[in-house]
């Protein structure tokens, strides 16, 4: 009796799963394909994020500076117009379509998957990151700029030494979330034959006539995202802790003690 149950379990669960694992990962060294897919996903995400951060920072500084001056000069007005157009163009076109334009028009000759992916997602991400930074910068008290300028620092000096360090710190959790969103979004890169994780899974699904690879793909993304979310949350806690430790709370406590002492 017990024997038949174990054989049933083996027949119904263990055997198909191990066969799937064998077919999907082991045969023809398919694990190597998986690994290179994962590597592509992570590289595209990481470098696109870097590119996006650079672009986003640049755009946000242009836009904030432009809005800060009563009469911005021609150069700044022109740059502002360009970056504003850039942001609305990028936000107005679906990512898949942007991807297709980069792959089939701009990089049509080169076929460099990694580069295509980084540029397409980085440029897209830049537009969103710029809004994050812009919010971060405008969340900084106006008195900070005033204090810097009144000490004789120039606008750029005040921006880079006083405003941005505080703004970037405030933005870190939002940027973490952008990182997560970007990671998931790269899963459409297979549309232009960039062999990232999802694409690899889908190809193997086609070869093996077995839907299991998509489940594995899902699990891998889930693990990655959960891990990143964990990091973001840790970062948020750390930030709010340092604010609390040094911030208003302490002052309030101090004041209470003072009141008590009186």
């Amino acid at each position, binding site marked *: 009796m017990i024997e038949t149950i174990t054989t049933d379990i083996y027949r119904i669960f263990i055997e198909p799963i191990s066969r799937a694992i064998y077919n999907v990962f082991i045969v023809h060294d398919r694990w190597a394909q998986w690994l290179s897919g994962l590597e592509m996903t992570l590289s595209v995400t990481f470098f696109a994020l870097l590119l996006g951060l650079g672009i986003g920072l640049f755009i946000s500084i242009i836009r904030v500076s432009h809005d800060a001056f009563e009469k911005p000069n021609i150069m700044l007005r022109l740059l502002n117009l360009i970056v504003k157009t850039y942001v609305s163009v990028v936000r107005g076109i679906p990512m898949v379509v942007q991807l297709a334009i980069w792959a089939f028009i701009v990089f049509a000759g080169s076929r460099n998957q990694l580069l295509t992916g980084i540029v397409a997602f980085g440029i897209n991400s830049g537009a969103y990151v710029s809004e994050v930074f812009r919010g971060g910068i405008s969340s900084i*008290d106006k*008195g*900070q700029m*005033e*204090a*810097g*300028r*009144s*000490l*004789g*620092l*120039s606008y750029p*000096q005040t921006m880079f*030494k*006083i405003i941005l*360090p*505080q703004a970037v*710190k405030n933005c870190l959790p939002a940027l973490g979330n952008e990182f997560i969103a970007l990671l998931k979004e790269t899963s459409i890169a297979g549309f232009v034959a960039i062999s990232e994780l999802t694409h690899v899974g889908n190809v193997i699904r086609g070869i093996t006539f077995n839907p299991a690879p998509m489940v594995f793909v899902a699990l891998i993304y889930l693990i990655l995202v959960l891990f990143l979310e964990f990091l973001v949350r840790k970062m948020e806690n750390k930030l709010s802790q340092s*604010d609390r430790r*040094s*911030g*208003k709370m*302490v*002052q309030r406590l*101090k*004041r209470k003690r*003072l009141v008590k002492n009186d």
Partner: protein
Amino acid sequence: MIKVKGLEKKFGELEVLRGIDEHIDQGEKVVIIGPSGSGKSTFLRCLNLMEFPTAGEIWFENEEVSKYRKGMDLNAHRRKMGMVFQHFNLFPHLNVVENIILSPVSLNRASKAQAIETAHRLLDRIGLSDKAKNYPATLSGGQKQRVAIVRALAMEPKVMLFDEPTSALDPEMVGEVLDLMKNLAIEGMTMVVVTHEMGFAREVGNRVLFMDEGVIVEQNDPETFFSNPKSPRLQDFLAKVV
């Protein structure tokens, strides 16, 4: 030292300063009082060109600074005028010493080592040496404002502008900030102080100005100013605040 001629400032349609003529001599302590919205802050901010006058001239040490609009001259002028704000505006991401040395070092006024030495000397003077490595958020309001004052002093300004430096402080901390300002006054610093502290105005001021609706309505030495106000508006105002 500072000459203001026919100074006007508009924000759009709003006329905030409506013709101010004033001379401030080296070493003078000028106290400005007046109701909220009368343009006291705007006047101070025009002096160090944080705001640009819409009409009139500002002269500093025989140079017309109000024609500066940007760049080197402007920043150089601001360097000569320390400014202290109601809300301190310390840089929260930098510790006390870093707050003080940021500007001297960034502007190549001193090497980092020199600037740090100066910072410690200044902190010593205000009795906050032990807070050198603290972040602003761990300081009391009074301590913050005193650090803000020495941060401005680290640029070796020729004039100090104070915009209600004690208004945001708990009452028990007002004294320590006023004491530091009195010390500065005794050392001969030229000071322009917007404040509601009438005691300070009496004790330290050489001259008290009453500003209302964008003009200086009345001014006098503190004694006469408070004991014998002439204009009805000043009489009203003093009756309300004292």
